């Protein structure tokens, strides 16, 4: 009834190709943005339930936004270009540590030239973006094998990147500014002269990054390059015969994906953790991201958000339910139950909806179109 596109005529190709061709979608999107940018901070400011205290903002929304961003990055590689990667955690780490190095200044003495590469400490925003850029380089480097290795073999091969970077950041003291313990602290979050420290401000930082990158990604996958990626995903040999260069398509996918993942990694380190060690970007993180993408829906930007919400929130929710209901079972049992329930739900979702939440969403939209009079 509400969701009916009758009477909306598209008179130009531009309208037909728009990101949200249906008016209701546009309104919903704007409402969502308004909710995220205005209502949530306002509620948090006024401490109205459920935003009493900082828990929801700090422990749920901020990690959710950052992981959604990372999931968008992974989705570009896995969902759009069909290259399975288990090394996303490593690219997050590359982003985080490079941003840290740029943020604290770089000094590489080149003794044999009698000079040195000196970069003064950069502000936080350029550091984060440069961190993403470094991750993109790493991504391209480890993407080269994808030209020859395919499918699950590639998935396992990307683990080489995961373990290699885990090791590099543990063992090369230069990356941690020779910190004795190997753990590093993020520089102060200073954006354009303002120090962002309260949870609301941090939430804004993440939200802005996510909005910008989600829109960029959405536009990228609708364009020429996105279509090349999808052609490669669906059948790389056929795509090659049609004149798409696999080298270019695959490596750009690796670069763009790793860039976004790297930015997410830098945010995770700077905004969420504040102090971190390589274990924060371990293989578990890679699996978590891959889960988000698959549960959310391969090849869908929306899916990245839905998947991130599901994988992040479900265990936290399950963890708190028995306590809130006053059921006296030990945390040990609860956390094991969380394992079992999460695992079974993942299997269940894969069985009933292998295309993820995003497909569910579009089915819902189809039904809504005809509601309440389906034929």
């Amino acid at each position, binding site marked *: 009834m509400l969701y009916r596109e009758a009477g909306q005529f598209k008179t130009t190709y531009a309208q037909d190709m728009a990101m949200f061709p249906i008016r209701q979608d546009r309104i919903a999107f704007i409402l969502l943005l308004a909710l995220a940018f205005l209502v949530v901070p306002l509620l948090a400011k006024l401490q109205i339930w459920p935003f009493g205290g900082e828990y929801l903002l700090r422990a749920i929304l901020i990690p959710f936004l950052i992981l959604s961003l990372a999931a968008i990055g992974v989705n570009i590689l896995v969902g759009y270009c069909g290259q399975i990667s288990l090394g996303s955690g490593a690219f997050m780490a590359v982003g985080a540590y490079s941003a840290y190095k740029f943020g604290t200044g770089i000094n590489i003495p080149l003794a044999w030239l009698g000079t040195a590469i000196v970069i003064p400490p950069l502000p936080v925003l350029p550091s984060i973006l440069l961190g993403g850029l470094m991750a993109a380089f790493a991504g391209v480097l480890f993407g080269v094998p994808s030209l020859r290795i395919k499918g699950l073999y590639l998935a396992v091969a990307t683990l080489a990147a995961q373990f290699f970077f885990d090791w590099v950041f543990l063992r090369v003291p230069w990356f941690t500014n020779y910190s004795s313990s190997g753990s590093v602290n993020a520089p102060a979050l200073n954006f354009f002269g303002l120090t962002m420290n309260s949870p609301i401000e941090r939430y804004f930082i993440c939200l802005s990054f996510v909005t910008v990158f989600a829109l960029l990604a959405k536009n990228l996958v609708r364009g020429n390059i996105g279509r090349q990626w999808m052609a490669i995903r669906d059948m790389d040999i056929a795509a090659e015969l049609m004149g798409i260069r696999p080298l270019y398509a695959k490596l750009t996918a690796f670069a763009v994906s790793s860039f976004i993942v790297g930015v997410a990694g830098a945010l995770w380190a700077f905004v969420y953790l504040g102090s971190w060690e390589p274990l924060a970007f371990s293989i578990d993180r890679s699996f978590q991201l891959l889960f988000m993408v698959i549960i959310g829906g391969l090849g869908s930007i929306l899916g990245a958000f839905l998947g991130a919400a599901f994988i992040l929130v479900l265990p936290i929710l399950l963890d708190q339910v028995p306590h809130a209901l006053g059921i006296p079972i030990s945390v040990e049992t609860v956390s094991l139950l969380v394992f079992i329930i999460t695992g079974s739900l993942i*299997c269940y979702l894969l069985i009933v909806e292998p295309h993820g939440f995003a497909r569910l969403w579009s089915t819902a939209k189809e039904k809504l179109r005809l509601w309440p009079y389906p034929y």
Partner: protein
Amino acid sequence: MIAFGQFLEILIGGLLSGVLYSLVALGFVLIFKASGVFNFAQGAMVLLAGLALVRTLDFLVARGLPFWAAVILGVVFAAAVMAIAAFVIERYVLGPLVNQDGLTLFMSTIGITFVLEGASQMIFGADNYPLRLFPTDAWFLFENQFPGGILVSKLDVWGGLIAGVLVTALAIFFQRTKTGRALRAVADDHTAAQSVGIPISWIWFVVWLVAGLVALVAATVWGTKLGVQFSITFLALKALPVLIIGGFTSVPGAIIGGLIIGAGEKLAEVYLGPSIGGGIEYWFGFVLALAVLMVRPQGLFGERIIERI
């Protein structure tokens, strides 16, 4: 002479500990061969089998049973647990997922991993349970030629022997028995196998059961080495480079891949490690595997991948 002795010692130690990885990798290969499922849950299955075995063993020994009888009963019980797990996995997860693509199946096995990890710790406990089935001390060979001799761990030798027996048994099972032949038929072509009357769900149950039993064997060796506890699931990750070097579909490949990875990473750690900081063996195996893949994208012994449009 000392240097050569050391080299020999590390080489032997590496080769043997590589065979221990192969024990875990074998389970992967079996399932991939028969159903195209990349079974990430193999590590969790080792944990489940080990916990079932060691807890029964402890229980029975505490009740005054002689050790050998307790071991037999424990193995029988653990095998039964693995059979139940195989049945449940086939019936409720992989059966409904038939004909999905490899990535979905792979993800579902990670879901299974979570369930197995949670359930096995919930039922059997989350502590570290020591298991002592094999001797853990070492032989010192050629003490006349090399000062201090060449150390060979008895447990590793046991592991090697067991792996040898296991591979022979599997080869006989695949080549000589009716179920084994049916299994190979299913591996070649699901639909064709089904149309000549091979019950696919039964075959898959058998495959998961066999993989479960392989996990049980791996658990006896690894449990003796590390104690049975949660970290045993990390073995799945150590088995992956073995798997890619050998190829996902080759049983002997799993053994040879294990030998290459084991020797390669131990030698690298000892000879290359100190100059670049140590702790390199975790990624070295993967990089070695990556290098092999660049030359042969299907692994050393994998079936050739033929692509058609």
